[in-house]
């Protein structure tokens, strides 16, 4: 009990003391996850729309694979990225293992199925109706995509936020491929693991509080977007 109280006290003073290391850890978490979501969005939103609306061979299998990958355990994504980026792996020549780039790749691998899956599910039911309406109004191909994105912005928005939440709270994959390097690849989740291991519970709790607040904000946005 003492640990917890002390931890909270220490945590609060850490948050408000302007500790640069803590802030840079928070900043890296936010930025890595943000970039991951942007990259995933570019891939997943068009993919989700196409898979959700178009008929093509093996469509059922593709949907099944995406649904499975939505629950992909992060460490497995991490392991794959690690093996590919290792100097002895096929992409080793890039030399980006243990860097924020590697973390972004792992996160993209995790979020792409989530955004694709949610977009796909949303578009599946009502997409054809929207498409036909737009078609009768004389929309062209690229315009059509834009109209669909606008029409389904709520679902797409919530898929992006769900993806962001997944990315920022994930620990296994970024630990493996980032290496938890101080001042370089240490993010909130890996810092919590390290500080807990070292018995620095106040640091761990401080970062934990920030992560919780962030998650709370993310959920508020998610609810708003869905309610709109």
């Amino acid at each position, binding site marked *: 009990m003492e640990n917890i109280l002390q931890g909270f006290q220490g945590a609060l003073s850490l948050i408000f003391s302007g500790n*640069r290391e803590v*802030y*840079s850890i*928070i*900043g*890296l978490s*936010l*930025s890595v996850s*943000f*970039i991951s979501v942007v990259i995933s969005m570019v891939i997943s939103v068009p993919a989700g729309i196409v898979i959700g609306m178009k008929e093509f061979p093996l469509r059922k299998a593709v949907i099944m694979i995406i649904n499975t990958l939505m629950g992909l355990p992060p460490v497995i994504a991490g392991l794959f990225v690690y093996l590919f980026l*290792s*100097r*002895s*792996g096929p992409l*080793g*020549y890039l*030399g980006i*293992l*243990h860097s*924020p780039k590697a973390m972004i790749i792992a996160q993209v691998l995790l979020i792409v199925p989530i955004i694709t899956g949610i977009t796909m599910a949303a578009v599946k039911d009502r997409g054809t109706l929207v498409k036909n309406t737009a078609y009768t109004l004389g929309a062209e191909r690229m315009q059509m995509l834009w109209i669909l994105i606008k029409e389904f912005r709520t679902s797409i*928005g919530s898929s992006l936020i769900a993806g962001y939440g997944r990315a920022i709270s994930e620990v296994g994959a970024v630990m493996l491929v980032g*290496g*938890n*390097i*101080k*001042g*370089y*690849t240490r993010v909130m989740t890996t810092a919590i693991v390290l500080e*807990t*291991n*070292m*018995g620095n*519970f106040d640091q761990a709790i401080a970062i934990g509080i920030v992560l919780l607040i962030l998650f709370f*904000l993310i959920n508020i*946005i998610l609810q*708003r*977007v869905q*309610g*709109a």
Partner: protein
Amino acid sequence: MRKVFAIVIGLLLIFTLVSCGPAKTPQPQEPEGPGEQAPQEETLDPITLATTTSTENSGLLGEILPHFEEKYSTKVNVVAVGTGQAMEMGKNGDADVLLVHAEATEIQFVNDGYGVDRHRVMYNDFIIVGPEDDPADLKETAGADAAKALATMSEKQAPFASRGDDSGTHKKELELWKAAGVEPAGDWYKSVGQGMGATLNFASEQEAYTMTDRATYLSMRDDLDLVILVEGDERMFNQYGVIKVNPEKHEGINKKGADKFVEWIISDEILEMISEFGKDEYGQSLFVPNAD
């Protein structure tokens, strides 16, 4: 509603941009005050150092690395893992230099051509720690005999937390079980699969015994309900070595950086720093330099 959304996204973006700078381009540490001005030498590309959790968790690297980073205007990226994984990183070319502790495996590593130019750097020793009331009576029965202590634990089925992660500490523990002639197995033998700090916390929580390097234990002592029970056995000697990863095995190894790093860490100045480390805080050195 859309306004809220836009504001939050905007804030996130700003924070991202602001924080991206220092986080993504690691800067060498600023010199701290005019104290000791190391002569500015040539600059080096960032180095990846694969090492064991004990050197980082004890705070040693945090103490000495800024000196190197300042001297060569570079950055040392420390990946702290078990010795087994650190050596695997070396084999795969994912690190430039290793600072590990498992002498037999290290020599094998060099003989196999994965590493070059191995040096001893420093040592500390392993100790067996456990709950203060010592339910298995290790202190009485084993004295300083580590193997006997392990045999006693297995006899009495006293809970023992093992690193179980192929680290240097784990390898040493297995050596000692062999010396004790016991195959550790059963409910009492808990293989944790984590770093030294986590294992110590686990042992403290579970009122179990464990084997640890002295440095990590001393640096965490205040947070642990564990006391030293067995120490001073020659077999619990813990030698740290530095090895350059063989630059001919893989593209992109920072050979120059590794050369300078090894030269630096076995220099008299740094060995002196190592021997002073921890004296103020714990009343004894955590590591004893013995470079060759």
